[in-house]
């Protein structure tokens, strides 16, 4: 989506002047951000700068000290998640360590949302779980426990748990962290496939530049509690900013878009 087109549309997610501290540590310091419908915004940044904190603010797991988050023009900070899902938009989050419920099978994990919120017969639940797991390439793993599968499979199962209820917004917290390059490529492909099939608006936080290039429509640099730079994937590489250039150099990606 080009800049002029975006200006015509109101952002789906509007983060305004977000502040969050933990004791003396100021994590978010007036962070503002717009995400447009259907796009995938990748937020890059070093470990520990507060990328995950930002996602938790957006989905409502934590409240900011100051500032607000709007979804389609509705401020959601004071709306409980349950009401938010019902009245504003369904959201889903892929956690850094997958956060599968380890007392449940993969199938039970996958249908968790549906079981809690929708009255669906058991057979249909199983069918929908099968389809979701098939989409992430985990067919046949329905009865396995999370402890019996690999890290990459856990991430895919966690993604199946999100996509089964077709959220309008999906937040990915370090989706490729701790995975080997081949599994990372699979996860990136899944993120793209999910975007294509669900038409979901996505925010991906990562420090993996290769992943950012594969899944992002726009890239943003999170630095010292703020979004330092934001641009389309192609433009981002040409920004003459020492911070960004140093980021690329460290990741050996300089010259990819030359």
């Amino acid at each position: 989506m080009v800049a002029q087109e975006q200006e015509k549309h109101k952002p789906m997610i509007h983060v305004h002047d977000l502040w969050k501290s933990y004791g003396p540590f100021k994590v978010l310091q007036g962070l503002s951000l717009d995400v447009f419908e259907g796009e995938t915004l990748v937020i890059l940044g070093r470990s520990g700068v507060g990328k995950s904190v930002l996602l938790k603010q957006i989905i409502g797991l934590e409240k900011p000290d100051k500032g607000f988050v709007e979804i389609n023009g509705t401020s959601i900070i004071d709306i409980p998640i349950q009401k938010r899902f019902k009245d504003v938009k369904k959201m889903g989050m892929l956690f850094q360590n997958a956060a599968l419920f380890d007392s449940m099978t993969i199938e039970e994990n996958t249908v968790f949302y549906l079981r809690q919120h929708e009255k669906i017969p058991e057979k249909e639940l199983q069918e929908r779980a099968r389809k979701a797991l098939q989409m992430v390439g985990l067919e046949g793993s329905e009865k396995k426990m999370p402890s019996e599968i690999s890290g990459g499979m856990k991430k895919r199962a966690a993604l199946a748990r999100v996509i089964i209820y077709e959220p309008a917004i999906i937040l990915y917290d370090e989706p490729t962290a701790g995975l080997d390059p081949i599994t990372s490529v699979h996860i990136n492909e899944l993120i793209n496939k999910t975007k294509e099939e669900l038409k979901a608006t996505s925010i991906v936080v990562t420090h993996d530049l290769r992943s950012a290039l594969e899944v992002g429509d726009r890239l943003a640099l999170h630095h010292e509690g703020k979004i330092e730079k934001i641009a389309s994937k192609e433009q981002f590489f040409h920004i003459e900013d020492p911070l960004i250039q140093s980021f690329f150099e460290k990741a050996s990606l300089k010259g990819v878009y030359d």
Partner: protein
Amino acid sequence: MYEIGVGSLPVVAITGFSTGMVLAAQSFFQLSDKGLASATGLMVTKAMLVELGPVLTAFMVTGRVGAAICAELGTMNVTEQVDAIRAMAVNPLRYLVAPRFIAGISMLPLLTIFSCIMGIMGGYMIAVYYYGMSPSSFLDPLPDHVDNFDVFSGIVKGLVFGIIIITICCYRGITTKGGAAGVGRATTNSVVVCYIVILIGNFLLTLGLNNSYEYFQEAFGW
């Protein structure tokens, strides 16, 4: 309920039974040379019903169930499983805490009664089969001196201890921070706090129940 109730039966049975045996042995030993051996059954029954049954059951359930609840919820919290529940618009208090709370407050009184029965059985066996008391000497004083209020006291204590254990352990679990070390600290802390609160609570409950004895006698004809 199965995990808290049925799962705790063996440990509660062993604790109640052995405590009843010790109580009978001590009572008989201490009272027989004063001509009060016939009070053995009464001592065992009263002590088990109003004090030892509820407190020991609560201790056992704290160690077996409370610690497990705290560790489980703590692990879920530090591995973001609780966040995942919330992120899917499910209230973790309703989903994780409420079922444990209901199971705890319904199972503790039942386990307390079970522990008391086992204690009385243990005491009976020692008094009758080891010290040679006649069964009637052990059992006959009971209908006259053990009343509904004693049973009521034990059940009320079991109920309150159930609330204490589940509340403390769930709270400590769901607020755990700091990875595996944090889970360990939270679990130890929850057990220690439970023991202290149970002991203090037992004292206060004893005072409160004893002071309300006359009220219950008049109100219910006990």
